[in-house]
């Protein structure tokens, strides 16, 4: 339904890849090298001219591609006349002109606006080898222009790196802008915020189901921290776990068959697995201390969580099947909010050092710890983008907490939500 506008047509991929193998652009990770890109503003194709459409598409595409860290943009001021020519076939593009400007890749496109109907066609060219790399046509309405641009950005990353971008996904978060903490949903660039709950209570720690159809969250609506599930498209909502005491930090397993969560029904916060109908399947932890905040490994065989069983809060990893539990973090006195990365190799978390929280990542064997943020203020609640390229988090350097996004190496941080109210606890959806 959400994608009803999208009739994506893969265009003109006739060129055989074999002859071009020698010129494939290799990218190992974002930020390590940058490709000079000429990004032209899309031009009207016969229909009505609309600077708003062209500008908005351009703004979204530039922001997404800039965040990726893969590109160095050729200054649009230096563009020559080919930037104003519509021709989208590789035979029509004046590649030497772009070569002259130092561009190795080129994006050109057109839009056709007829009433409210919008067709956008975008192409990515390899300037060096004078060929089309990929192209797509998006059909929808004028209000869909941002989604079209995000989808095109995803496609460009896929073409150049082999892995699709995450720009068409969404971010769930908690905001108090109505006066109560409610669940909200927004685009990955912070635009189009949408309130999902109206509990007028306290709504907390959202997380997406792995296929993205539902969001789990905790709410005090019934005067107890109960776990809810909500279908995003229908808005249908139900309590999933409502035992006396805590029903918090619910995280659905990768196969969507179980939910890991913290319950305190036995007089101590412990991690359990429950079925999707709320029945307890398994108890994962059993000790005097606090156990909370589970995060699944992508293969669904392990969870990482926080426990103070050895004194201070540290991260542990438990094997779901054998119950074998190992400690992951050894440094610091307060480590929390683990988020297992989608590639399985690293876990992001927060550590308090000098009275302040910053974000770190660590390999799952406890080696190669890296600090990503360096204050000021507290950076908390890291979550990975579905492709593992980016980390979203909350940061309170300006007083109120706001949602920020950065590359997984800690570079390129930018703010997504307003500073006028408090936004926190982001969760990144899977790809839609």
């Amino acid at each position, binding site marked *: 339904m959400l994608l009803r506008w999208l009739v994506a047509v893969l265009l003109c991929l006739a060129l055989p890849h074999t002859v071009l193998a020698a010129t494939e652009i290799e990218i190992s990770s974002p930020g390590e090298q940058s490709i000079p890109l000429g990004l032209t503003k899309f031009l009207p194709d016969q229909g009505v001219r609309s600077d708003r459409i062209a500008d908005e598409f351009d703004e979204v595409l530039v922001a997404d591609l800039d965040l990726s860290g893969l590109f160095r943009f050729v200054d649009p001021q230096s563009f020559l006349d080919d930037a104003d020519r519509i021709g989208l076939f590789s035979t029509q593009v004046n590649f030497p002109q772009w070569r002259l400007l130092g561009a190795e890749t080129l994006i050109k496109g057109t839009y056709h606006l007829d009433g409210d109907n919008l067709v956008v066609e975008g192409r990515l060219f390899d300037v060096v080898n004078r060929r089309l790399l990929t192209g797509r046509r998006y059909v929808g309405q004028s209000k869909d222009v941002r989604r079209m641009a995000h989808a095109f950005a995803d496609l460009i990353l896929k073409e150049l790196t082999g892995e699709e971008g995450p720009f068409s996904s969404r971010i769930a978060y908690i905001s108090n802008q109505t006066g109560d903490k409610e669940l909200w949903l927004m685009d990955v660039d912070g635009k189009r915020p949408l309130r999902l709950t109206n509990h007028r209570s*306290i709504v907390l720690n959202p997380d997406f189901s792995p296929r993205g159809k539902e969001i789990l969250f905790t709410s005090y609506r019934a005067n107890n921290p109960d776990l809810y599930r909500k279908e995003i498209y229908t808005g249908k909502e139900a309590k999933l776990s409502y035992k006396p005491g805590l029903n*918090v*930090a619910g995280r659905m397993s990768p196969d969507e068959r179980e939910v890991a969560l*913290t319950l305190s029904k036995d007089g101590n916060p412990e991690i359990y697995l429950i079925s999707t109908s709320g029945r307890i399947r398994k108890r994962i932890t059993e000790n005097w201390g606090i156990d*909370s905040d589970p995060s699944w490994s992508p293969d669904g065989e392990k969870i990482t969580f*926080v426990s103070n069983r050895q004194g201070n809060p540290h991260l542990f990893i438990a094997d779901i099947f054998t119950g074998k539990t190992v400690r992951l973090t050894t440094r610091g006195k307060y480590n929390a*909010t683990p988020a297992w990365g989608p590639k399985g190799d690293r876990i992001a978390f*927060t550590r308090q050092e000098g*009275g302040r929280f910053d974000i770190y990542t660590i390999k799952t064997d406890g080696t190669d710890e890296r600090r990503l943020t360096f204050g000021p203020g507290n950076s908390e609640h890291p979550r990975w983008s579905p492709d593992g390229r980016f980390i979203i988090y909350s940061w309170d350097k300006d007083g109120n907490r706001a949602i920020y996004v950065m590359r997984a190496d800690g570079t390129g941080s930018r703010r997504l939500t307003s500073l006028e109210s408090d936004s926190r606890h982001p969760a990144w959806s899977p790809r839609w």
Partner: protein
Amino acid sequence: MKAIQFIKVSLVVLFLVSGMIGCSTTPPVSQDTVGQSDMSQQADAKAATGVTEDTMKEETVPTHAHMANMENIYFDFDQFTLSAEARKTLADNAMYLKTNSGTKVVVEGHCDERGSDEYNLALGESRALAAKNYLVSLGVSAKQLSVISYGEEKPAVMGANEAAWAKNRRAEFKAVH
């Protein structure tokens, strides 16, 4: 906004301190003047260095007559163990609950704003449970007591400083009507 609330809090604290000074400057006749001036100097010093919550708590709630709001207990950062002072307060609260066995109370566990929401929800729960279990050990009927954790969601005091945090790491006792 935060600043205003902080000022309000500061004013309350100052008010309470001045109340204490008032008490200490109306001593029994037998007290000598040197002692008097020492005491007011102490109070002044406290006012100058920022007053801790403990100072106001002990002296400003005179009797158990108004125990519809039983006294809060406070915790150290990331701890749910009961301090000697917390146990003393709980003993008072237990006495009240035993003499008013019809009163039912929700023990609310709270944390300061630092740390993860999820961990703090668990920590708040552990604080509330520690308080409840201690009350039960003092002879309060478990049926009178229920617990709920609000984690860091309902701070008593706004502010990102130790004075505010110390007031927020607490368990509250609220009568259920």
